[in-house]
């Protein structure tokens, strides 16, 4: 009896090997995607919550991201300037991050023509909830300015208590 069960299981395994690229692989992939998981916001920057439209470009404001467990990054908020092609050579914008009608930060950076040239950003904190940044490049995930595709992303750390 046990031997029959063993051979049946072995046969099923070989059958599964045949099914794997046609059925199992797709099933498991869709199943994984349907689990409702998301990539850590420390990497992705969190979902977009608002867009501020200027004359030629827009600023996407994301939801603040807070570290999990003992994650050694600071909480931050990400802002995206896009499209890069529409940005002036020097950007200096006052942004109301939390949408309360009061300005929170002033962000200033140069937009080099060379897309691979390094970026530097200065952030003046008009609201003590945010940390100022001076000549910051890409220090860490919670404090940086980078160009990703056709957008320039700035992550402004939230002031620690």
């Amino acid at each position, binding site marked *: 009896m046990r031997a029959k069960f063993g051979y049946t299981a072995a046969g099923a*395994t070989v059958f599964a090997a045949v099914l794997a690229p046609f059925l199992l692989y797709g099933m498991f992939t869709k199943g994984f995607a349907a689990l409702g998981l*998301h990539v850590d*916001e420390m990497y992705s920057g969190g979902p977009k919550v608002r867009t501020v439209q200027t004359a030629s470009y827009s600023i996407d404001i994301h939801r603040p991201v807070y570290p999990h467990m003992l994650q050694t990054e600071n909480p931050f908020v990400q802002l995206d300037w896009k499209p890069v092609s529409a940005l002036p050579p020097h950007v200096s914008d006052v942004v109301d991050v939390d949408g309360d009608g009061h300005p929170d930060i002033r962000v200033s950076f140069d937009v080099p023509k060379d897309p691979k040239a390094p970026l530097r950003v200065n952030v003046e904190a008009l609201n003590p909830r945010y940390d100022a940044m001076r000549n910051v490049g890409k220090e860490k995930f919670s404090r940086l300015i980078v160009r990703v595709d056709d957008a320039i992303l700035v992550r402004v750390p939230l002031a620690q208590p």
Partner: protein
Amino acid sequence: MATKAQILKANKAAPRTIGRSLLLTSPIALWSLLMFANPQRQSNRSLQIASVITSVFMIALFFKMMRTGSTYRWRRWFFVGLGILFPVGFIHNVMVMRGTMGIPIEEMIAGRTPFCYLPIPLLILPAAFTKTLVFPGSILPGGGMSGAGMAAMAGLWLAITLVIGKGWCSYACFFGGIEEGMAAVPTRAKLRKIDPRWRYGPWAVLLAMVLLSLALFEPAYCMWLCPFKAVSEYVAARNTVGMVQNGIFVVLFAGLVIALPLLTKKRTQCAFFCPFGAFQSIFNKTSVFDVKIDRTRCSPCVLCKTACPTMSLTDESIARGETLMSCMKCGACVDACPKDAAVWHIKGTEVGIKPERARLMFLYGAWAMAIVFGGSIIAEGLATILHIFV
């Protein structure tokens, strides 16, 4: 006095006839043609030629397995080929897309870090607690180097693991072939006495990395310890932390993947370090195939123990008639045994009764998976080289 080779040859069963070997190879030949005749592979000439070469290669190796009755030697050709050609194809793609093996932070933010199976065990607890994947990739294809996405790799891993359990480490892992190749170079091991407690290393690394990944919410093994960043990609160092991390992987690669296999003729990274291997060991409990020692035939000469590349046989386990949980089903012990005491086995059946049937059933599943996954990687790597000429 007869040499070891003469003893082995005298005691081994006669080889199968060519006709019978071809017959047994025919399902694999059909499978290989089906997989490599995929229209998507016909996108360029070098890939067409590489697909044909790979298909013939895989069919020929399986034929030799059937003809000679041995597994390890022929499987090793495939595995070493995979270990060499994966970095060729991967590094080429990385250089074309990015111009550097260092992953810039922009790529991580954009979710374009390619996902390999090694961090799978590290992602489980953070995902269970917070539904968050602590890896800077994309769940679905996200462009650039993100490839088919994390869901696809997870799906592939689960499908292959269901079929061959920890056989993944002998038929699918695209890194293990490097040290298997290194271990094959010397004729004799220079370092023969290895403390058997080092076998617990992978479990310790798994435990430490799982806890650190949960605490720090990052793939700790990838960030700190993975030696194979030397042949794939690594996080570009932006500060002291990055430099320390990169220094560590270089040292670990040189030591565990190159030097120690040359000295010990063992797969030292796999046997003493790899946390994914420890994780896959769990699936040996669910796999229906294993390797047993028929104690009615065993001497014991412990040639199997010497041959095992991962020290998955001890005197105690041989006395019990079984391998340890870390057995990768590579077939080295079975091929080394002069008495045919080490045998392939299907759980629930009697040990030593029709072991060739168990071997065949295992190999059909394992080789089918090897063709689908490893074979496609070999073809891509070959195509990269052929592209220079074609």
